């Protein structure tokens, strides 16, 4: 294993998070079994009190998980200098077979955590803890994911040995050879990728505008947001990255984050991820208005989330368009 400060910090964060989640599970089970707002029993009062503690702890854990995702990618990129043949995060993640699973799990934890935080926020808007069972039931699903993510990350770091020859982006994302998902993505025709992206963004804009005007269709917007996340990532790998590097066969999604390319990847990924979180979160919030105590507050929160998600997707679209337009690479010839 490598004794790297960032690695130690990541392991520390995931260990503390898993520990705190695990220690709150008995309380979660108690809430699911015994919670009864109508009761004035001492156990109920005690539970109502304790829910503040658990919610605060979880907020902290889940925010830390979001930060850990950024740190993980950043660190993977930086560690490339330690491995022969690795030039960016892809090389570092390919050193060990657990590298990419660790990244995907980190992303999954990030999104699930964000959705949970939305649920928690909406729950706090009502006076009678309207979503408490749902919230804690969701936690039962989230806790194992966090634990597994921590375990896979640990396995990855334990397996790291400096100087292992690894393959790097130029061969990995070149569109032929091993069939990793990313290769299939890279092979997607540029026209299809950009067309899908435009259609997806249009769908998100339409569903979002409809929700803001009519107050219905939040779930549709949530689904569209989730779809745009996938489409957006595919478009980045297959086409937008090519425009940025101005090399027709360089598809790496991580080199975008590097200084050579002006850290432009952050301008793409942050709005895309945030837009998805807010879009899906808006759908979640919109679904909760059936509870009487949330009849007013939930739609308001949902509208705000959907508004933010629209702004984020717009920013993503503008950045992507700008990258395509400023590039010197020509992929589509205009008709003569």
């Amino acid at each position, binding site marked *: 294993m*490598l*004794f*790297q*400060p*960032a*690695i*130690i*910090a*990541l392991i*520390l*964060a995931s260990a*503390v998070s898993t520990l*705190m989640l695990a220690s709150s599970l008995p309380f979660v089970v108690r809430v699911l079994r015994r919670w009864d707002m109508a009761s004035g029993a001492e156990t109920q009062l005690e539970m109502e*009190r304790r829910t*503040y*503690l658990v919610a*605060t*702890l979880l907020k*902290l854990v889940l925010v*830390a998980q979001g*930060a850990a995702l*950024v*740190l993980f990618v*950043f*660190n993977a990129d*930086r560690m490339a*200098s*330690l491995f*022969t043949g690795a030039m960016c995060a892809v090389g570092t993640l390919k050193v060990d077979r657990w590298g990419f699973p660790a990244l995907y799990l980190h992303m999954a934890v990030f999104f699930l955590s964000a959705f949970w935080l939305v649920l928690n926020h909406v729950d*706090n808007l009502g006076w009678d803890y309207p979503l408490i069972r749902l919230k804690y039931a969701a936690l039962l699903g989230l806790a194992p994911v966090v634990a597994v993510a921590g375990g896979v990350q640990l396995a990855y770091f334990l397996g790291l040995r*400096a*100087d292992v020859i690894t393959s790097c982006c130029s061969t990995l994302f070149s569109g032929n050879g091993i069939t990793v998902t990313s290769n299939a993505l890279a092979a997607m025709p540029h026209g299809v990728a950009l067309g899908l992206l435009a259609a997806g963004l249009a769908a998100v804009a339409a569903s979002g505008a409809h929700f803001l005007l009519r107050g219905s269709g939040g779930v549709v917007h949530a689904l569209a947001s989730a779809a745009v996340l996938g489409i957006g990532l595919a478009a980045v790998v297959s086409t937008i990255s090519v425009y940025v590097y101005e090399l027709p066969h360089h598809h790496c999604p991580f080199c975008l984050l590097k200084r050579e390319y002006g850290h432009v990847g952050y301008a793409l990924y942050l709005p895309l991820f945030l837009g998805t979180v807010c879009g899906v979160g808006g759908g979640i919030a919109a679904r909760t208005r059936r509870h009487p105590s949330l009849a007013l507050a939930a739609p308001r929160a949902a509208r705000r989330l959907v508004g933010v998600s629209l702004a984020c997707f717009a920013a993503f679209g503008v950045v992507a368009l700008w990258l395509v337009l400023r590039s010197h690479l020509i992929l589509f010839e205009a008709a003569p």
Partner: protein
Amino acid sequence: MTAGWISRQRHLLDFALSSLGRRRGKNLGLLAVYTLVVFVLASVMLFSHAIRHEARLVLKDSPEVVVQKLVAGRHDLIPAGHLEAIRGVRGVRAAEGRLWGYLFDPAAAANYTLMVPRDQPPAPGTALIGSGVAAVRDAAPGDTLSFRAHDGQLVQFTVAGTLERDSALVSADLFLVSEADFRRLFGVPEGRFTDIVASVRNPREIRTVAEKIDAALPDTRIILRDEILRTYDSVFDWREGMLLVLLSGAILAFGIFAWEKASGLSAEERREIGILKAVGWETSDVIRLKTLEGMVISLTAFLAGYVLGYLHVFHFGAPLFEPVLKGWAVLYPDFRLTPFVDELQVATLFFFTVFPYTVATVVPIWRAATVDPDQVMR
């Protein structure tokens, strides 16, 4: 709507600051310990990072490929005949033999690095010396230094000059002599070199060139500049990590300290929270207030500790951790590190200090926030 939210946060922050001010002694103590923890960790990270940076700068101009002869797994003098073989490999721009070695000087109880420079070597009988050598032997240009050669006879050198100080990291212990003097001193026969350096025209071909040299000269070991860099990176990372693991005891102690501080609520403080709740604050408001107080302390301590660590490393030469991180030698150069702040490093440091503090204070904050007003105001 947003304006209302901002002004709400501002008032909360105002309240948090005044509440911190009311318990000045306690909070200043906490702040001092917190700052100290950040300072120690920041110093370690800044120092090891800067020294890695320095190594990279130094190695930037070093040759791409070094070829050493091995006999029974040990480094041996390389025959000049190998030079031709290396020059014959396609892609090699130039190859030269180097003469260098170490000389122990009993008068100074220090090791010098003796070298024959590639261009403009000193005239036979004279030497150019580094600043460290000049200081330890108290030598000025024109002085004479003498050493015992390999056969016991004395060899004398007149100091022709000292080397520039701005490259102290590499040149402090340097002792540059002519080729004839070098061979005389160590008894290296003509036609033999310490090692051979080769430069390669196309950086992408370095690995292939190395493989070809390896195939042509099986009795040699080939060291690439990239490998040296990587090894330095690993070694410094490892040292830094080791030190951090050792210091994690301190982080743990700090966490316990923070927990203690946060849970030791005075009667007055409990009353205060009771009154707040009696006038309509909710539990979540009190938690938010206390979190804000913690954030103020965290950010202040982080900033102060980081700035102090920066000053410690880049202005005072990190006297506290130098021996552990740098390794040691009698003639270690006295050099000033290039200030360098790295985003990843700041993020990591934040994880190491603020995260444990926040985790440690959650439970005490919750305890404080859930007190019943009637219990404490009675």
